[in-house]
């Protein structure tokens, strides 16, 4: 439903009833509604698919990482991915590398940041949840610094491109982006969903998971790598859209409880729906398109505070 609404709303409104006809026309090669076809297949559909993919990825990875790192305040970005991706994209934009290299570099640097985080936390901290989060904060700070240097040295017109990229956007999404992002994102999402029981057991704490026969270090790293693969690929295409990854896990827990079998699948669909709705707002509430990252932040912050207030008493050790 969120998908249909998302597709139909925009500068050029489409009626939901016309969509089946458009598919038939596309398949049969006729072009009775040429303009509608163009709008639907080349603009609305890739954008909607990307929004859904982004939301689903963020929902699932956010929930999985919160469990794996035993911390309800963790988001994928805390591992350094967002700043890593920003540096990659900024490098490409500042040096005018050209089409798709921005996405590729953002992807590569996001993964690089996660690897750095894991390496730092494995040296002294033996990959404990706290050491991973701390290492992630350090790596984020490092990449933020590099990003600032790039922005200072770049040409002014490139700086605004960099800022635009970081804010996150879905209006420039093409099928190319979707095709590039989908395989790694699906691998990550599928892997995490299959591992959902292990992820639940990991959230009980290292000693207890070990006592239940789990190789804690190995499985935690696998979950983090799967999450990073998925997140890096969607962030590379759409920029750093925040808050979905933090809101979705809490909202999902509120809706389906903490049932370890349902939690991850539910966070997947909820994440997708949330981002589709946010993007519908982004392109419809004002004459100009609002960057989607701004919308998710403006909605996300108060919603997060509300959710935290509602559920703070159920988080052990918080009372």
């Amino acid at each position: 439903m969120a998908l249909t609404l998302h597709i139909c709303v925009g500068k050029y409104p489409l009626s939901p009833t016309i969509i089946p006809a458009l598919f038939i026309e596309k398949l049969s090669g006729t072009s009775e509604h040429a303009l509608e076809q163009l709008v639907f297949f080349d603009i609305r559909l890739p954008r909607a698919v990307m929004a859904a993919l982004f939301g689903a990825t963020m929902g699932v990875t956010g929930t999985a990482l919160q469990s794996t790192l035993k911390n309800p305040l963790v988001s994928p970005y805390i591992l350094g991915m967002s700043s890593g991706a920003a540096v990659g994209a900024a490098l490409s934009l500042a040096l005018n590398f050209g089409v798709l290299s921005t996405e590729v570099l953002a992807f590569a640097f996001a993964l690089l940041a996660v690897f750095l985080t894991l390496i730092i936390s494995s040296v002294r901290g033996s990959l404990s949840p706290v050491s991973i989060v701390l290492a992630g904060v350090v790596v984020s700070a490092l990449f933020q610094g590099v990003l600032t240097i790039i922005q200072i040295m770049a040409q002014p017109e490139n700086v605004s491109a960099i800022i635009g990229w970081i804010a996150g956007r879905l209006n420039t999404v093409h099928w190319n982006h979707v095709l590039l992002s989908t395989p790694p994102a699906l691998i990550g999402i599928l892997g995490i969903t299959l591992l959902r029981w292990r992820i639940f057991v990991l959230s009980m704490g290292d000693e207890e998971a070990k006592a239940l026969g789990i190789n804690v270090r190995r499985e935690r790293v696998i979950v983090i790598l799967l999450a990073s693969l998925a997140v890096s690929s969607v962030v590379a295409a759409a920029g750093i859209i925040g808050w979905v990854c933090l809101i979705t896990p809490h909202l999902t827990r509120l809706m389906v409880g903490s049932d370890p079998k349902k939690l991850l699948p539910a966070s997947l669909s909820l994440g997708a729906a949330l981002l589709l709705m946010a993007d519908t707002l982004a392109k419809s509430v004002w004459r100009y398109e609002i960057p989607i990252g701004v919308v998710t932040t403006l909605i996300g912050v108060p919603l997060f505070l509300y959710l935290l207030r509602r559920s703070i008493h159920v988080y052990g050790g918080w009372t």
Partner: protein
Amino acid sequence: MIITVEDLTFYYDSIPALRNVSVEILSGELVTVLGPNGSGKTTFLKCLCRLLKPRAGYIRFDGQLIWKMKPNRFAQLVGYVPQIHSSSFPYRVIDVVASGRTPYLSTFAVPSKKDYELAYQALEAVGCQELAERTYTQLSGGELRLVLIARALAQQPKVLLLDEPTSHLDFKNKITVMHVIKSLVKERRITAIVTEHDPNIALAFSDKVILMKKGRIIAYGKPDEVINEETMKIFYDLDVEVISLPNSRLKFIIPKMLNIQ
């Protein structure tokens, strides 16, 4: 299952916590490890459940070296009940207990209906079946301890290792928890190794008592042989009196300094 410990030695960095500990524990017994803080009893327990890897020495279960076993296989033999448990997420009790089935599941599997039945039976065995649907972050200390014992039972282990199961519990819950452990040992012929601070609990419930001090085993044997005026004097530097109740095998020790009027 017979547990054989030979020359077990463990260091935290350069501080010795266990020195040449050797002991043999027979199956179907409740063994209490008694000792003051820092005596090495928790370290001993954690070595037994492979949470700590000893510097030297061997631990064998029925002759098999525990560090040679696969993690899954080991978790099917040994259930561990931690002293402190903190979770950040409000899971249902029954899901927590079902996590005890993890060593029987393949990597991508979730517990089946049968696994949930076994989890429910484990809850029944500790008398907590009515907690199944509750949120376990909202349980009381005593309930939480019993639920964690149920989770270990769901592993269907031959050995239960419990780290201070009576700590931070009220008077009645202490007795309840120890009573549950004792009856599990008797009914299922499993071995339970329990660390404890209170000599009277050790006297009342255990089949054998291990006295530990400064990383060594000082005494090992039947409770009333190990806990008496002499050993308590050496052990805690405390004068005690052993009281036997008439018409009962129960014995208690009372510190003499309580006599100050």
